[in-house]
């Protein structure tokens, strides 16, 4: 009953793949702990306890400080000298910290022990700690663990690691269950609801999102699960889901009118949705998206853009900016390039675009300054120094903290890039 899986252009993988500059050096990118910033807002009864150093705690508050409107559901158990002396003591200390924490926050239903660089280096076994604490606090609190350490994860990979930790506890779909659609990756609640409505309009009702908003509502998975990734950085999560029998629906990522259409179509095709039904479901919002993009096109058309690596969203965003807003791509840097998951997006990039993977920040700055792009996407450590050199920048982190997926957000995504240019044009000081 399934129609051909994908109607959008798929790359003839390999032969015309763009050249990739691979670099190794200083990376000006956050570690995976930073993902806690959005994960703790998404799963509303989960708490994230980093087992790490003062540096980890300092990172979290420096990166998040201004964004917290409520008491955060994350904290750090700071390893001290005496914990380094003996791991047995460290485990006892950790148990005491967790006890104090759960007593203070009785509403917590899921606790993530999050590994860090120091906990990985001293080989503190957080999976055993999670097991031990899980038994102690069951059934009230489920205890899981993952690593957000900088020696293993880059920025958004923290979300990948967290979702991967969730996969083994997802309920099993019965063997004979009807096909279901699983949308994987953290989305803003409003965006999730928009997609839910669009899928409902297509008649896809066996639908769930990972992660769910509450610990007790995590979706089931099984051999008849088809899943769509909303983020390009979920490689390990995808692998874990496939081990549970789920099948990935290849698609470009749902950024912009074109990307969102193709992403939805991948599901529509897999679920045998008739073309007329699909068209009827998306016509109005797609039209709105195209209209909303017009607001920014004037500012962006023909402008040259340079991406420093940050969130792994660079390639789909570059695809959106080049195809829907006619921007020119100078260099598209990404911390890690998952060729398989990004195949559809890569195929839509203009020929000969310079991609780079990894980073040597000093060399990349040399290239950026030499190219003098109209706008540069970079992290917070580089933005003001580049502005001071006369370049216009866009903070990459905003692309992660702002809802950008789907039709209704296409205009917002374009606006994020138009605003710095409009601002520079407006200022006369």
């Amino acid at each position: 009953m399934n129609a051909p899986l994908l109607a959008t252009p798929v790359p003839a993988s390999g032969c015309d793949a763009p050249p990739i500059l691979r670099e190794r050096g200083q990376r000006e990118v956050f570690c995976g702990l930073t993902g806690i910033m959005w994960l703790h807002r998404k799963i509303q009864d989960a708490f994230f306890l980093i087992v790490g150093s003062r540096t980890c705690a300092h990172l979290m508050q420096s990166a998040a400080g201004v964004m917290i409107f409520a008491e955060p559901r994350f904290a750090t158990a700071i390893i001290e000298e005496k914990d380094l002396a003996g791991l047995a003591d460290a485990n006892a200390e950790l148990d005491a910290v967790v006890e104090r924490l759960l007593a203070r926050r009785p509403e917590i239903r899921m606790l993530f022990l999050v590994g860090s660089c120091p906990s990985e280096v001293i080989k503190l076994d957080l999976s055993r700690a999670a097991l031990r604490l899980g038994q102690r606090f069951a059934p009230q609190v489920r205890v899981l663990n993952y690593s957000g350490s900088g020696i293993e994860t880059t920025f958004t990979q923290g979300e990948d690691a967290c979702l991967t930790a969730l996969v083994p506890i997802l309920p099993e779909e019965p063997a004979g269950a009807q096909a279901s659609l699983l949308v994987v990756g953290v989305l803003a609640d409003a965006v999730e609801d928009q997609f839910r409505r669009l899928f409902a309009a297509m008649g896809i009702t066996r639908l769930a999102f990972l992660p769910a908003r509450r610990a007790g509502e995590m979706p089931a998975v099984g051999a008849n699960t088809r899943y769509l990734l909303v983020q390009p950085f979920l490689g390990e999560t995808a692998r874990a889901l496939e081990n549970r029998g789920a099948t990935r629906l290849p698609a470009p990522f749902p950024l912009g009118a074109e990307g969102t259409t193709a992403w939805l179509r991948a599901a529509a095709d897999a679920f045998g949705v008739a073309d007329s039904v699909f068209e009827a479901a998306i016509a109005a919002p797609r039209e709105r998206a195209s209209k909303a993009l017009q607001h920014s096109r004037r500012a962006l058309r023909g402008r040259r853009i340079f991406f420093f690596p940050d969130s792994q969203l660079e390639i789909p965003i570059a695809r959106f900016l080049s195809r829907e807003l006619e921007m020119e791509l100078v260099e598209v840097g990404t911390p890690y390039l998952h060729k398989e998951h990004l195949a559809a997006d890569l195929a839509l990039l203009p020929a000969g675009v310079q991609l780079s993977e990894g980073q040597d920040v000093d060399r990349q700055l040399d290239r950026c300054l030499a190219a003098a792009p109209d706008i540069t996407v970079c992290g917070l450590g580089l933005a003001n120094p580049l502005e001071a050199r006369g370049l216009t920048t866009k903070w990459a982190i905003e692309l992660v903290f702002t809802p950008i997926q789907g039709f209704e957000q296409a205009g917002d995504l374009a606006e994020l890039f138009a605003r710095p240019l409009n601002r520079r044009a407006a200022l006369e000081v």
Partner: protein
Amino acid sequence: MQLTVWTYEGPPHVGAMRIATAMTDVHYVLHAPQGDTYADLLFTMIERRGERPPVTYTTFQARDLGGDTADLFQRAAHDAYERFKPAAMLVGASCTGELIQDDPAGLARALGLPIPVIPLELPSYQRKENWGAAETFYRLVRGLAGPHMPAPGTARPARKPGEPARCNILGPTALGFRHRDDVRAVTDLLSRLGVVVNVTAPWQASAADIARLGDADFNVVLYPEIAGQAAQWLKRAFGQPTVATVPIGVGATRDFVTEVARLAGVDPAPVLADAASRLPWYSRSVDSTYLTGKRVFVFGDATHAIAAARIASEELGFKVVGLGTYSHEQARDVREAAARLGLEALITDDYLEVEAACAELQPELVLGTQMERHIAKRLGIPCAVISAPVHVQDFPARYSPQMGFEGANVIFDSWVHPLMMGLEEHLLGMFRDDFEFNDGAGSSHLGHGTKHAAGRPAPVTDAVERAPVVAAMEAPVLVAERPIVLSWAPDAELELKKIPFFVRGKARRNTEKFAGERGISPITVETLYDAKAHFGR
């Protein structure tokens, strides 16, 4: 292990970064994993620096751990030297770098770079940011000024008659609480006393400047947390006395002027008679009567907390009900200051403990750090920030020192304004049932919407934007003036609530305008998004 929600200080290598970044030609090579580069944004975002901090991170990864991370360090140090050509280099490790025990000191020495290389041992699992800054500054001063030290027992040559006294200003760093402006205030004070500043360090100092610290007659230590240790060594090595009084507040500034004048052999009277000092008169003016006996809770680094307690009790007539610090190294000084006020000092770096103490004491004003601002907001108490840890707001565009007579003026304003608005509180109490001036609206000096049952910050702007709308609907006169009542379908209303509170009011207005112009009723989810697309952003 210590359970930490917020931390008052970063790790010690961030202290070292504050020293390196303050200086003009020193580079810091840090053996650290990816992610530790977050510290750059403290300087580029919070302090709004237009340059990256002069730090190279080796960025080792898990896969390097079995291999040669030592080689990685050497390459990074070598490349950093070639690229940045610093006059001196600091080398060390962050918390993870420390665990892999690669010995940055020995590795850097083996490179044989043609500049002074100063190794830093900063134990990350015992020490914190200020200690790291102090240790780094001390190592730099020893390393660069040490070679110019006179033979032990040599007497300092006397100043020639008529030659002005010279001093060093020690302690201001990058990312310091008002350090930029304090340097200017103190330099100005010294120049009015006829004292020449030999070197200010580490703020905008070069490695060569550090080497000539010994040329001064004495040292002014602005922040003992950072420069105390270096000043002690300079005293031993060069026989330079230290001015230990920190000139924050009118009384302390007067003491400072007197102490400097004595060391410089000049008359302090003209400077002490400074008419620019407004705090004494403002504090005596009748308008300040209501400040009398206001209960204040003081918490911060040792320097600022001690100074704040003195100003509060002696210069503003407040009653200090709590005094504490997160600076364990300076705990003794804070305990003594607290004892003089009949208090027991709170010495802790546990935010939850400070919160508990503050809640129990029920002060009328909190003088603290950005952390206490959180606490005060939650408890609905006015607050002024007196100390690091810093926030982008602590780097005001205007000149806004804490030190000297002008600093005291700034302090008067910034502490009293949150209380001055207290008048509004009385009015809120009197007109509790006023339809637009009600209890729920909260007083303006407390931020928005601070009075809420759960003790959590409310979705603030919502309260501000929505309250007048609701109130207007309830006022019969105004209802009569509304020609059409736009109705919202329940699912559209729900959808609207999903829009972040700080733009929700605008979204509602735009959607209603859009629907009104087109005669759409009720407003549906589709209308909401049609309007969104219509107006753009």
